[in-house]
């Protein structure tokens, strides 16, 4: 393609970008004067917590804002063309042919009624870049580049017939169909398991490199961005905190905020004073469970020692959340038994006594759906106290306030708030308070930190550890995040496809030799080292060859 600009001119240059969003009839700034430049062939990483404005900037690079937002100033120049205020037709023409976008959820972005290749060829044909036959041949070529299995055939499947990781790669292939100059990746691997994430990351990286496409890579995961990007920008509350080449940024972050982000992964629970072995609180013996005909758990056995944290790890579909439902009695076990403090629990929650129900409480992954949006904190936390312990009036009020103090929320401020008036971390704290209100022995934490930002997640882990030490609580900690396990677990149970692969004290599990699956899980966790992915893929190739 002939270009008038000198080859070293920036492909995308954003100057003093300001975007505002409408909230309760007032325009509030979301992006507050951000500058960034992407050169041809460069991969630019945008890092920040949720609400930092990184996705908004990603969309703005296409001259686009979400509904309810508007450009308030600045300029977005793509290859010398000003996109802000440009006619719709021009922006639409650029999209897909010169700028492409890969969304977080490929499953939600593909039309389920058409085959992958039909959707792939749509744009090249529409833009008259290729004929349908050429486009299909090119699609197969791109599928091969993205290391999809059976590249000749996979495009003729429907979206539901391929896995999540494959779908994400197919979407990247689709974004590359017109050989755009710039691709915007918005958290393309966030919804994937760690082992799948690696395949997708390396496929995307190789394809981007071999085609020389420039890219903006948006993610909240530093380690992932470190693998992908040449330059990194850290954002917070719509402002640039710091920008530098990836290696410089990793080795010597200048700003305090950046340093704190880097340090989060180093959190560790303080060692215990007493090394004495704990008594067993819960015994899970040969538990089988099924949804209808579909068997999801078979022969699960392990113990939960009193006052300790047992982490249950595994990828999605490994049955770890189902195990929690079995223990809670929501999904009665088909076989085996669950014993609490020496007594066998009835399989279904309806048959359990109030005292038995009180002993086991749960903290949910999604604080948004875990708290009734129409109840105030007072009622959410107060109800279990009233229900189980029979407190009313002043005693109830005092106990509720005490609990809020325990979870580090000021009762004077938060007691009468609705969940919608709380931040994500605060909601999760209220969820913890509700579980503690029953004064339980065992708390099941189902991915409690996975929907939180890293800084907030760390404070949540600290809180959980402190509460455990104060109240001698036992935790069953369900997670897919190995960093969390390293931080707080005493014992680890590794699950895969409904069976326990390996279990034991944390130090033993994390010390080689590992079970092959544990090895795979451990090695798949992105490290804060820009060479980690290359090293890992090189090693995998060596072992396969």
């Amino acid at each position, binding site marked *: 393609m002939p270009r008038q600009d000198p080859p070293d001119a920036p492909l995308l240059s954003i100057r003093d970008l300001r975007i505002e969003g*409408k909230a309760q009839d007032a325009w509030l700034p979301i992006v507050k004067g951000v500058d960034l430049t992407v050169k041809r062939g460069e991969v630019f990483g945008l890092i920040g917590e949720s609400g930092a404005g990184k996705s908004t900037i990603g969309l703005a690079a296409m001259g686009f804002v979400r*509904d*309810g937002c508007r450009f308030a100033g600045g300029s977005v120049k793509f290859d010398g063309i000003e996109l802000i205020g440009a006619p719709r037709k021009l922006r639409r023409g650029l999209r897909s042919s010169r700028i492409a976008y890969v969304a977080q959820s490929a499953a939600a972005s593909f039309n389920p009624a058409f085959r992958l290749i039909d959707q792939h060829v749509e744009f090249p044909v529409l833009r008259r870049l290729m004929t349908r036959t050429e486009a299909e041949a090119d699609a197969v070529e791109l599928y091969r580049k993205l290391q999809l299995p059976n590249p000749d055939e996979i495009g003729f499947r429907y979206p539901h017939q391929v896995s999540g990781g494959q779908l994400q790669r197919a979407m990247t292939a689709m974004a590359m169909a017109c050989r755009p100059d710039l691709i915007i990746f918005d958290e393309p691997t966030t919804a994937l398991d760690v082992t799948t994430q690696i395949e997708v990351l390396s496929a995307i990286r190789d394809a981007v490199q071999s085609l020389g496409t420039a890219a903006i890579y948006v993610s909240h995961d530093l380690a992932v961005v470190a693998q992908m990007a040449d330059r990194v920008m850290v954002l917070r509350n719509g402002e640039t905190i710091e920008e530098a080449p990836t290696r410089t940024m990793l080795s010597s972050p200048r700003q305090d905020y950046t340093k704190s982000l880097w340090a989060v992964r180093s959190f560790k629970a303080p060692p215990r004073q007493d090394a004495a072995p704990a008594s067993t609180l819960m015994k899970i013996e040969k538990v089988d469970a099924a949804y209808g005909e579909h068997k999801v758990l078979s022969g699960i056995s392990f113990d939960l020692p009193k006052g300790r944290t047992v982490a249950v790890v595994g990828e999605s579909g490994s049955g770890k959340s189902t195990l929690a439902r079995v223990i*809670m*009695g*929501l999904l009665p076990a088909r076989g085996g038994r669950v014993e609490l403090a020496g007594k066998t629990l009835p399989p279904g*929650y309806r048959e*359990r006594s*109030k005292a038995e*129900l009180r002993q086991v409480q*749960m903290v*949910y992954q*999604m604080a948004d*759906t*875990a*708290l*009734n*949006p*129409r*109840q105030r904190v007072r009622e959410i936390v107060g*109800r*279990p106290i009233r*229900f*189980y312990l029979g407190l009313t009036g002043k005693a109830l009020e005092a106990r509720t306030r005490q609990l809020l103090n325990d979870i580090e929320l000021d009762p004077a401020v938060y007691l009468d708030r609705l969940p919608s008036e709380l931040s994500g971390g605060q909601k999760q704290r209220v969820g913890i308070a*509700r579980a503690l209100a*029953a004064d339980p022995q065992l708390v099941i934490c189902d991915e409690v930190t996975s929907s939180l930002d890293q800084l907030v997640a760390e404070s949540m882990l600290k809180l959980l550890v402190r509460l455990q030490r104060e109240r001698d609580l036992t935790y069953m900690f369900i997670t897919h995040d190995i960093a969390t396990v390293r931080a707080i677990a005493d014992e680890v149970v590794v699950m895969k496809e409904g069976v326990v692969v390996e279990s034991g004290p944390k130090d033993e599990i994390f010390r080689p030799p590992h079970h092959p699956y544990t090895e795979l899980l451990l090695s798949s966790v992105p490290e804060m080292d820009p060479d980690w992915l290359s090293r890992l893929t090189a090693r995998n190739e060596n072992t396969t060859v």
Partner: protein
Amino acid sequence: MASLIRTVKGMPPTALFGAAVIAIYVLVAVFAPLLAPYSEREVVGDQYLQWSAQHWLGTDNLGRDMLTRLIFGARNTLAIAFFATALAFVIGTVTGLLAATLGGVVDQVLSRVVDIIMAVPGLIFILLLLTIFGTGIVTLIAVIAVLDSTRVFRLARAVAFGIVAMDYVEAARVRGEGLLWIMRREILPNAAAPLVAEFGMRFCFVFLTIAALSFLGLGIQPPLADWGSMVRENATLITFGDITPLLPAAAIALLTVAVNFVVDWILHKVSGMKD
């Protein structure tokens, strides 16, 4: 009070108009005996008198004052429609929430019964029931309420199904809470908004049903004044180019429009749609 003023200020003109019309209707209905120049059943002059200073809207087929009948009509028709709708909502919401919360057999039985009732054309079903049970006001309210509760049931069940799947309902279940508490405290507050919007809509339909039944002679019985029967009784006047019998019909139409404006606004507020 301050929040009420703020709500009124935030209303679009259509909703404001609707709310004003509804307020006037309610006031007229409540204070009918004070506002009406004559009494509801009193024969005050000849039949079909023209509009005059004594009888602003003339007289009807029996020589009763039309304006008076119109004012009392608001009272009868509105009250019956309101109670029928309210009863329909009580029945429909309770059964709908039960079906969604308990699921399984309870849901199947309730849903199939509702399917059967809905399969019969409404007006014909009402006519049938009214012939069996007679045409008292209580029967009228009960029959309309039962029939209309089927639609409320479907809405309540559908809305509640989405809520039952939420973690907070699950948390309440494993806490050991009773069915009533779960329905009342966990589900109903979250299902209230669409149900309130539906209330306005259903109210309109009930209103029209009553008017239609009265027009057919099976609704509110004479000598009670009612807009539907007023149209029927005086319909002959239309042939002479007199628009008086159309006034009760216009009253029905205006209220329907007003209620729908308000419902529209509530729906917008509830769904969080931006204009």
